[in-house]
């Protein structure tokens, strides 16, 4: 197996109020087959052996589904290629290449430490309406609602969102509308989601604004970086649903 060398610039920042700076590390003898996060593991273990503090970064499943990992690699949220940062492999880089790694730069995602940011704003957006209110035990037999395959597939494509925050990190407006649109589309397409359809879009968009995120102005950067391939058309759906929600409220059709 061949090895590679890289010139790394890694972001170090003790806490949200700290100023933060890049540290430079010449990472040598990195196996070409290892993943980007495994490369960071190697670097961190070397720092630890030298008695220095490693660079904090979040990761868990390391197969692109849990959405825990989040970082900007050479200017691209979640790094080059499709998938989350844990899906990036070192063979995609040139030997000797400089690599800059920094945290997501989004006002609504305050920095916790180094590359780790606080994305709890996304949970709060879901809590404001990203669900179907039903209670356990009250469900009718699953076969009573027929959902044609194209509709189920479109709902699934939207539901594939991993909630990683890359959409907001890629957007010049720090807009999470791909994330919000994905949930509104997923639930809005299904018969089960109809009862709360209008209030859902309105409530989620309002929470999104309260959290300090921006709106979409059609850059499509979110779609380009989304690890889960969520299409930007969900934002069009979100806009329609939101307007319906506001109008419904104005005429007193919803609370």
């Amino acid at each position, binding site marked *: 197996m061949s090895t590679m060398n890289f010139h790394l610039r890694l972001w170090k920042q003790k806490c949200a109020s700290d100023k933060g700076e890049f540290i430079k590390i010449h990472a040598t003898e990195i196996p070409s087959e290892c993943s980007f996060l495994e490369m960071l593991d190697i670097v961190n273990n070397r720092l630890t*052996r030298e008695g220095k503090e*490693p660079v904090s970064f979040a990761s868990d499943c390391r197969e692109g589904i849990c959405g825990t990992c989040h970082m900007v690699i050479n200017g691209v949220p979640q790094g080059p290629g499709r998938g989350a940062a844990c899906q990036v492999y070192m063979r995609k880089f040139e030997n000797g290449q400089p690599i800059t790694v920094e945290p997501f730069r989004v006002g609504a995602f305050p920095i916790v430490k180094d590359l*780790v940011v606080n994305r709890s704003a996304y949970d709060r957006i879901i809590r404001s309406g990203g669900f179907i209110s039903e209670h356990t*035990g*009250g469900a009718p037999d699953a076969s009573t609602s027929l959902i044609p395959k194209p509709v189920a597939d479109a709902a699934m494509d939207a539901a594939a969102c991993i909630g990683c925050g890359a959409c907001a990190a890629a957007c010049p407006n720090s807009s999470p509308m791909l994330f919000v649109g994905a949930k509104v589309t*997923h639930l809005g397409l299904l018969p*089960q989601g109809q009862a709360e359809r209008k209030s859902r879009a309105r409530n989620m968009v309002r929470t999104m604004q309260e959290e300090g995120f921006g709106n979409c102005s059609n850059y499509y950067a979110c779609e380009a970086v989304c690890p889960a391939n969520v299409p930007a058309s969900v934002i069009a759906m979100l806009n329609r649903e939101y307007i319906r929600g506001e109008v419904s409220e104005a005429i007193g059709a919803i609370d």
Partner: protein
Amino acid sequence: MILDAKIPEGPIEKKWTSFKNNAKLISPANKRKFKVIVVGTGLAGSSASATLAELGYEVETFCFHDSPRRAHSIAAQGGINAAKNYQNDGDSVWRLFYDTIKGGDFRAREANVYRLAEVSGTIIDECVSQGVPFAREYGGELTNRSFGGAQVSRTFYAKGQTGQQLLLGAYSALSAQIRLGRVNMHENSEMLDLVLVDGHAKGIVTRDLITGEITSHAADTVLLCTGGYSNVYYLSTNARGSNVTATWRAYKRGAAFANPCYTQIHPTCIPVAGEYQSKLTLMSESLRNDGRVWVPKAKGDTRLTQDIPEEERDYYLERKYPSYGNLAPRDIASRSAKEVCDEGRGVGPGGLGVYLDFSAAIARLGEKTIRERYGNLFEMYGNITGENAYERPMRIYPAVHYTMGGLWVDYNLMSTIPGLHVLGEANFSDHGANRLGASALMQGLSDGYFVIPNTLGEYLSTQFGKKVSTDMPEFKKTETEVRACVEKLLAVKGNVPVDEFHRQLGLIIWDECGMARSEAGLKKAIADIRALRERFWKEVAIPGTGAELNQSLERAGRVADFLEFGELMCIDALTREESCGGHFRVEHQTPEGEALRHDDKFAEVYAWMFQGQDNDPELLREPLHYEAAHLATRSYK
């Protein structure tokens, strides 16, 4: 202590109904007065939190992730079983029950498994009504696929992301309850100890992973939904953070640990490539619906796959198990892969791999259909290996995936500590010595949505007027002990990174307590683990302090627990002198190399009780009675 499983009287089909008819109820006015702590937000934890909150209990939920949606249930790929018989292929509650008991090699508790099969259908109803986008036919009906160990198609799925969709369903139900103020959610909070008051579980001590703050939380009962311990092997398909800490610390407070040696080695994973590797990636078992497993007939055959003619290939699963073929259960498929590799017929670097070939399915169904069914898995494979599985076969090898063992629980899901309930993979109850594919999601959700809401009253109805608070000396004492434990780790000040110890522990356990186990090997492993543990406490390096986000410290605490737990696992494997399911003792095999059970001695659950750091654990036994599914030698031929 005698283990009382509290199995209801009556024929197996009536047990759950009769339990529910006679169960202790808590009135709505009283539910508000009871507080429940739930640790973990995977399928079991999220579904239990949401459902108990809907019922009116005051729920406080903890997870070590930054969001409850990140729990490792999210990574389950293939599907969830349910005895709906929508396919009209002869499925029934009885068949799902029997397949699960047989798949578990007759080492699971009958009554629990029957209940699981019984509620399986309502789980699907529940999930559909939450908006889980299961795969559908063009006419709109739900569709199914087949999984290992079954001859019917009863697995519901959402592409290769079923776990993700089910978890997001439970997460959305949890989110709705958080919004209503009925669940108090604590993210970034790791449980580091269990607090007992008068011998009852009444709270936990947690560390805030961002600030390092150590705090106590009191309740009327505690639910552990903290998953399995596959990461004791270091390399597994589990997420990096998955750990044994919560259940291990509960064990050290008096919860019996049952069958720790029952681990599942999954047959279809991407082979290990190098020492730098941090985890292994599963390729869903559903791939065996359309993929054929083979190796060359000749040893050391290094020809390209297209140059190996059909008659020189050994489709060994189809040859050995004609009626189940490539869908033989996981333990059997894994062991067969090891066997052909040990014979020198393995493929790829190091000869540790077998082919999973889709060319026949692509020729039969077209690439488009295969892409629709498994597209994301093929993409994942291509990304990791740099190979295109549409053009050449995948290379796969078994890897640790799931642990059937866990804390012992009775029919009510209560452990040997009164008030401590254990749900999902963290308990031991439903899968015996081998879990069938698509049954983990079923069990997690069954425990959380349908079992615990009905069984919790049995305990809580005895707890009126027994409120505790974190001011009590029991809480202060446990908190002090947790602080001391953190300080002790930080005081080592060695220079060896935590990962190093974890990797070495993993190698010891994989070699001696993995797919094949022997008396000599297990004894050696126990000695090696003890030596490694000693080195850990002298040499581990943990830079930084305890009052901040310190990932080395988090990992060190978990690895310290794995270093203790690994020993118990080997002791259990050594004591169980038979082979069953995933536990294969080389001394006990049939002439054909299949697992050889000794039902006369070992048709029992082994549950271990902690007796202090320097003493051997005490062994408790729960006899397993097979009244409905009669003990039989498993055959998939």
